[in-house]
């Protein structure tokens, strides 16, 4: 199992304060990695560094053997190989669901409209967006539908990996379920992914490895059972106790 992504000793400063402090990990082919941690831990910044929306200050990121943090790398080309799913969906407001998915296929992959339509159709159907919704605009869709279109937009580009930045944090509970279902299916089909989330149930079920971040650094990593149920680190234990209070029915 070769590494799709290798992040080594990544640092990022906002002004003088470090947001990422030497983060390292690697993601293998088909792996689902879940990143947990409190707000302000640097999780979103880490994802944005990986697809070069934010330029890291130190350290390296290697995607498929290519160092994408090296000077002179074409950021747009790198991003076209990495899907990104945002907390607030970020669909293009002026385009229909279908056009949202087709835009990258036409403008980035250079497909003609017919081919782009075929790929977009497959992609939308795979996330459970039926044909009656294809010509709706984002503002006419529910949050869950918007997020699934956003996932379709990301996977239509056949990325090497997909980054999820708290994809369900802005959704109602029932809609969370429909989005997590799509993500679980995607993982089962072999998609490599990094998921920043607070959904511990999803992490338990889907994650191959859980990474816990706090104050810009990885403080614990391991299987979901280890990190979520039997954390060694004191900070992680406190976090999990609180999460279990919020999420468990006992």
């Amino acid at each position, binding site marked *: 199992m070769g590494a799709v992504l290798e992040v080594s000793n990544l640092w990022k400063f906002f002004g003088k304060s470090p947001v990422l402090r030497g983060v390292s990990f690697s993601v293998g082919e088909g792996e689902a990695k879940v990143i947990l941690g409190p707000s302000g831990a640097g999780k979103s910044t880490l994802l944005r560094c990986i697809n070069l*929306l934010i330029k890291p200050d130190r350290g390296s990121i290697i995607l498929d053997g290519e160092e994408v943090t090296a000077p002179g790398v074409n950021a*747009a080309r790198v991003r076209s*190989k990495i899907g990104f799913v945002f907390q607030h969906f970020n669909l*293009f407001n*002026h385009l229909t669901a279908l056009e949202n998915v087709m*835009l990258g296929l036409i403008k*980035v992959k250079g497909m003609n409209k017919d081919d782009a339509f075929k790929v977009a159709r497959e992609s939308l159907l795979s996330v459970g967006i039926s044909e009656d919704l294809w010509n709706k*605009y*984002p*503002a006419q869709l529910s949050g869950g539908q918007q997020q699934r279109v956003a996932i379709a937009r990301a996977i239509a580009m056949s990325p090497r990996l997909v980054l999820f930045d708290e994809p369900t944090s802005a959704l109602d509970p029932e809609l969370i379920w429909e989005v997590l279902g799509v993500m679980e299916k995607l993982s089962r089909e072999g998609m490599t992914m990094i998921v920043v989330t607070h959904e511990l149930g999803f992490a338990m079920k889907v994650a191959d490895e859980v990474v816990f971040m706090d104050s810009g650094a990885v403080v614990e990593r391991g299987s979901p059972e280890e990190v979520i149920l039997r954390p060694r680190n004191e900070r992680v234990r406190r976090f999990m106790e609180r999460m279990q209070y919020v999420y468990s029915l006992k």
Partner: protein
Amino acid sequence: MSFDKLLDLAYSYGGLLFNGLLVSFYLTALSYLIGFTLGVLISIARTYGVRFVKAVCQAFVELTRGTPMLVQLFLIYYVLPRVGLALDPLSAAIIAIGLNSAAYQSEYLRASISSISYSQWEAALSIGLTKLQAVREVILPQSIRVAIPALANELIYLFKYSSIAYFITVPELMYVSKFVGSRTFLYVEIYSIIAVIYVAFSIAATEAFKFIEKRTSIPGLRISTRL
């Protein structure tokens, strides 16, 4: 004002006035297009450009907004020939009014670009679009929609202010009216007529832009002005 006089006026000078109106339309349309095209470019440059480009564009906008349009018109018509660039009156007016409008339109568009959420920009880049593509495919289509009311205002403004071309002898509506007035001494009548024409244009333009706004509005998306 008797009806006979009006008929007489229309019979003798209707064609001339109509030609004047056409020149005004032509002048307005071309300078508006120049203003829009440059306005789009300047607004993009001022939002996404490197520091030097931003500074040059800002200087242009401040200078243009800070001086009277008439001064700019005279500079282009009377001063440029001294450095070897002589323009006929109509071209000089089109360029002067077009550049002036570019400064204003760029500001309307710049404001509308900054009203588009940064997350749209991030999403555009995230699928692999280049920055230029992100601006063209995602930012501009949305920001121009936001700017439509301001752009309508600008067109009405330009049609009225195209009348300053009168000062450099462009035979537009104001110029021919003055001519007709001096021939017939029917100043009140003639200026009343062109006032009505200016108002009619402004109402027609308002309605046209309302129609455009409605046609291009994004279904389901509420914009704060329509709450």
